[in-house]
């Protein structure tokens, strides 16, 4: 009898457990009337809320929404436009920049001045820990000072054309100068003191960040009251969340995740030109920064004719369609994707390298790489066969597929390719510092100012004599390219600089230390019933999440549907859920009791 009672109690408890969460789910999610909320799902957790330390996209995005920068890319042209700096001028030698700082206030009411900007930049220049996120941005700075509250003066060691794309959020000095050790500071004080369109008001680690509209934002408060950035580790789970309405928007999706949302009438799928270029690295005879040869790259790849022949053997259109399922644009240029209309260089006319295996074979025949009986070519001196390795990452199905295509195409031109799968750590080392590769896969996400992506192909980026990597993406070292790079650095005339940048792309294209394959599209999705409109950056078919601007979240309009719509649907569901759960539990309980009686009867002998 007591056991029976215990079972009944347990049953009751189980029922209560099932029912109560439903009741609270209903109560908790009911937002205050009229609060316009947009919830963004991010498949990345916050690394740090301290802008001196944060490097992950999700954190730097949130900082872009919270803090003003000196300049931001213009929403239409992506050219530098005023943000905290209203205007700027350069000295004749190009070494001194004077910024006029906007007269506005921090969200706590303190006036924002040039001294805040000077403090932020000086902190990065003088404090090693503060260099973590944006150290390279200020490497060329000689001094930074505030001449008065509205005037910021930056002196550089060498001219720096990319000055107007400083990726450094300006922080409130009155809050941050009290921080002792920047490297150990988590910056978890809320509400944060900010100057951008949104203010972070709450952060639950590994769960979400809640931002509220900044009513005193200098452009005017955004139309959305709250922006929640919700963490999902798993892309499929994020999709489930979007379909259900737990979140309203997902940025930076992969192809599979994007395609899984096809056909859902409630969801807008955003498929536009992206920031990234995927390319092959061809070991051009790797050497250290001092010129000592390193690694074991195939000697044939030192020959630019072989590299060009390989370029002719690749059918980029097929790669974009088959490897990326059509969610990419075949590369008809170099490492700057067409999203950056101003800087993008397209290979046209005679310069264009088309898919033409016959031409590739002709080039190799002419260069003296003779085919053997098995169809594999040998070096002109007859010593070494053109057997090469293709280095890719382990657990990367798309790269495996790419390797299959490439192996087939290179076989046609007499090059035998074997695939080497490396874990990411080893891959980075072999293709970036020890040069133990022939051909390798790589890619780079380009910023509105493409200076950095070109720097990765400089002689000085090659590893030091002791084998320490400097961040080269190709082991390329070319005198003319170096000269062009230095020229664009100091070319303060925008049009002139664009021309130089295009010449650099042409150089990379024809020399082929890297061969661009395709530009993956930017894939995102949002719910129609929750987001009425959102303006991408650039405004013409640009990206929503992950750009160098707050423009999309600032222009965000929540749909007219009440914010409680999801919760309303939820409560009906909750009632049904309780009923179903109770029925199941009652059934199970009844079964157990019946069995119990029968068992007891059996056992009485």
């Amino acid at each position, binding site marked *: 009898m007591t056991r029976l009672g215990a079972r009944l109690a347990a049953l009751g408890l189980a029922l209560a457990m099932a029912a109560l969460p439903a009741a*609270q789910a209903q*109560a908790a999610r009911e937002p205050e009337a009229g609060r316009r909320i947009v919830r963004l799902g991010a498949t990345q957790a916050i690394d740090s809320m301290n802008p001196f330390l944060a490097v992950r996209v999700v954190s730097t995005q949130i900082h872009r929404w919270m803090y003003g920068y000196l300049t931001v890319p213009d929403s239409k042209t992506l050219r530098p436009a005023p943000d905290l700096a209203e205007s700027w001028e350069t000295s004749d030698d190009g070494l001194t920049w004077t910024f006029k700082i906007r007269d506005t206030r921090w969200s706590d009411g303190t006036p924002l001045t040039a001294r805040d900007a000077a403090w932020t930049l000086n902190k990065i220049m003088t404090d090693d820990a503060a*260099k973590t996120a944006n150290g*390279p941005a200020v490497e060329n700075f000689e001094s930074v000072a505030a001449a008065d509250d509205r005037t910021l003066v930056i002196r550089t060691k060498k001219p720096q054309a990319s000055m107007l794309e400083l990726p450094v959020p300006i922080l409130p000095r009155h809050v941050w100068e009290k921080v002792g050790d920047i490297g150990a500071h988590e910056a978890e004080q809320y509400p944060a003191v900010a100057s951008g369109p949104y203010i972070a008001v709450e952060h639950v680690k590994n769960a*979400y960040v*809640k931002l509220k509209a900044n009513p005193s934002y200098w452009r005017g408060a955004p139309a959305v009251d709250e922006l929640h950035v919700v963490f999902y580790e798993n892309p499929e789970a994020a999709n489930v969340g979007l379909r259900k309405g737990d979140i309203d928007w997902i940025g930076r999706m992969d192809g599979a995740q994007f395609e899984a949302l096809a056909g859902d009438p409630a969801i807008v799928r955003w498929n536009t030109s992206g920031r990234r270029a995927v390319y092959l690295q061809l070991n051009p005879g790797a050497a250290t920064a001092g010129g000592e040869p390193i690694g074991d790259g195939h000697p044939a790849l030192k020959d630019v004719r072989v590299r060009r022949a390989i370029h002719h053997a690749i059918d980029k259109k097929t790669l974009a369609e088959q490897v990326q399922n059509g969610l990419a644009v075949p590369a008809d240029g170099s490492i700057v994707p067409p999203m950056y209309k101003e800087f993008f260089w397209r290979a046209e006319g005679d310069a264009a390298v088309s898919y033409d295996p016959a031409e590739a074979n002709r080039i190799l025949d002419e260069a003296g790489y003779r085919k053997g009986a098995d169809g594999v070519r040998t070096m002109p001196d007859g010593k070494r066969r053109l057997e090469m390795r293709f280095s890719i990452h382990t657990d990367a199905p798309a790269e495996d597929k790419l390797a299959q295509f490439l192996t087939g195409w290179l076989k046609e031109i007499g090059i035998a390719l074997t695939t080497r799968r490396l874990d990411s750590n080893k891959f980075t080392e072999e293709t970036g510092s020890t040069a133990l590769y022939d051909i390798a896969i790589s890619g780079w996400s380009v910023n509105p100012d493409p200076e950095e992506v070109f720097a990765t192909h400089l002689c000085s980026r090659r590893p030091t004599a002791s084998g320490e990597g400097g961040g080269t993406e190709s082991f390329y070292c070319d005198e003319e390219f170096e000269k062009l790079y230095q020229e664009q650095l100091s070319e303060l005339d925008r049009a002139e600089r664009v021309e130089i940048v295009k010449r650099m792309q042409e150089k990379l294209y024809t020399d082929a230390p890297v061969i661009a394959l395709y530009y993956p599209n930017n894939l995102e999705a949002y719910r129609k019933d929750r987001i009425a409109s959102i303006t991408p950056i650039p405004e013409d078919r640009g990206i929503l999440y992950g750009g160098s601007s707050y423009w999309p979240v600032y222009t965000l309009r929540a749909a007219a549907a009440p914010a409680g719509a999801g919760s309303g649907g939820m409560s*009906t569901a909750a009632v049904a859920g309780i009923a179903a*759960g109770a029925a199941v539990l009652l059934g199970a309980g009844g079964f157990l009791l019946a069995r119990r009686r029968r068992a007891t009867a*059996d*056992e009485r002998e």
Partner: protein
Amino acid sequence: MTAPLGAAPGGVHGGVHGGVQDGGPAAGPAAGGPERTGAGRGLLRYALAKLGGALLSVAMVVVATFFLFRLIPGDPTVAYTRDVPVSPEQLALLRRQMGLDRPLPEQFLDFVARALRGDLGTSYEYRRPVAELIAERLGPTLLLVGTGLAVAVTLGLWQGTRAAWNHGGRLDRFSTGVSLTLWSVPTFWLGLLLLMVFAAGVGPIPGFFPTRGMEDVDAPDGPLYALHVAHHLVLPCLTLVAVVYAQYLVVMRSSLLEEIGQDYVTTARAKGLRDAQVRRRHAVPNALLPTVTLVFLHIGLVVQGAVTTETVYSWPGLGLLFYEAIKGPDFAVMQGTFMVLCVAVIVMNTLADVLYHVLDPRVRSA
């Protein structure tokens, strides 16, 4: 996370017997000595010997951890700065910050000294002490895996007992079959399936559970917060239990089957005891012993978190931390979680050994 099912019972016996033999020198005198020294002193000596062994194991783990993570090919600073613009000066600075510029023996001594103080290094990704990150994730993991383990053990032992008692019957075939089927299901797949059916809702089934994590924005305060978390706990816990409870069931079932054939069970029946009493008072307590080791081993593994379940449900536990550390790669975090896991397993194994000594007189006299 778990031993292969087939190996579990054997592993359990092997572990227990091995443990007893290890304790030989300590247990020997107690068993062979005069009767009045008593089990208490024997137990103390036995426990001390076990503790000594455990401390030695921990020391070995510390040494092994250090060298294991230095064996990973590649320069960690290069891995950390992948796809990020860095100058050689910055790399040098990073190396200095991480102490990689010093000779290996010096690094090792420093590592040991820090480990003794509970300092597990600093995460590169989070720029925070690893010990702090682990402490932060411990709560959610204990909640999820602890609840899951408790439910799985209860369910497994209960079903196992039933199955063995009705050996060969319909109930036996049904419960063993169901549990083994669930055991063979990939956790990831089951997790996503449950998520799609019970979180998103399919057809007449409403989307009743949340799609992620342990809490949502604007979670209620006070007692309602506990319910909020419980609501989030249901699906991950269900996934975890479904996939692991089979091992308890199978161990309990085989262990009980062994006991059913024993003479004392027949004697108990002959005394006229009711069937349920024979089972509860006589057979089950004896059959429970092998499961003790299994359960304690798994309690040790709790701190590992449930990597797959936590990943599918974005549950902010240690499993997710470990997964992210591998993705990073964040060596300090990998190293720290690995060490904490090893130590937890060692502690729990030692406890199981000692507890076994207390529970089973046969071990004492062995």
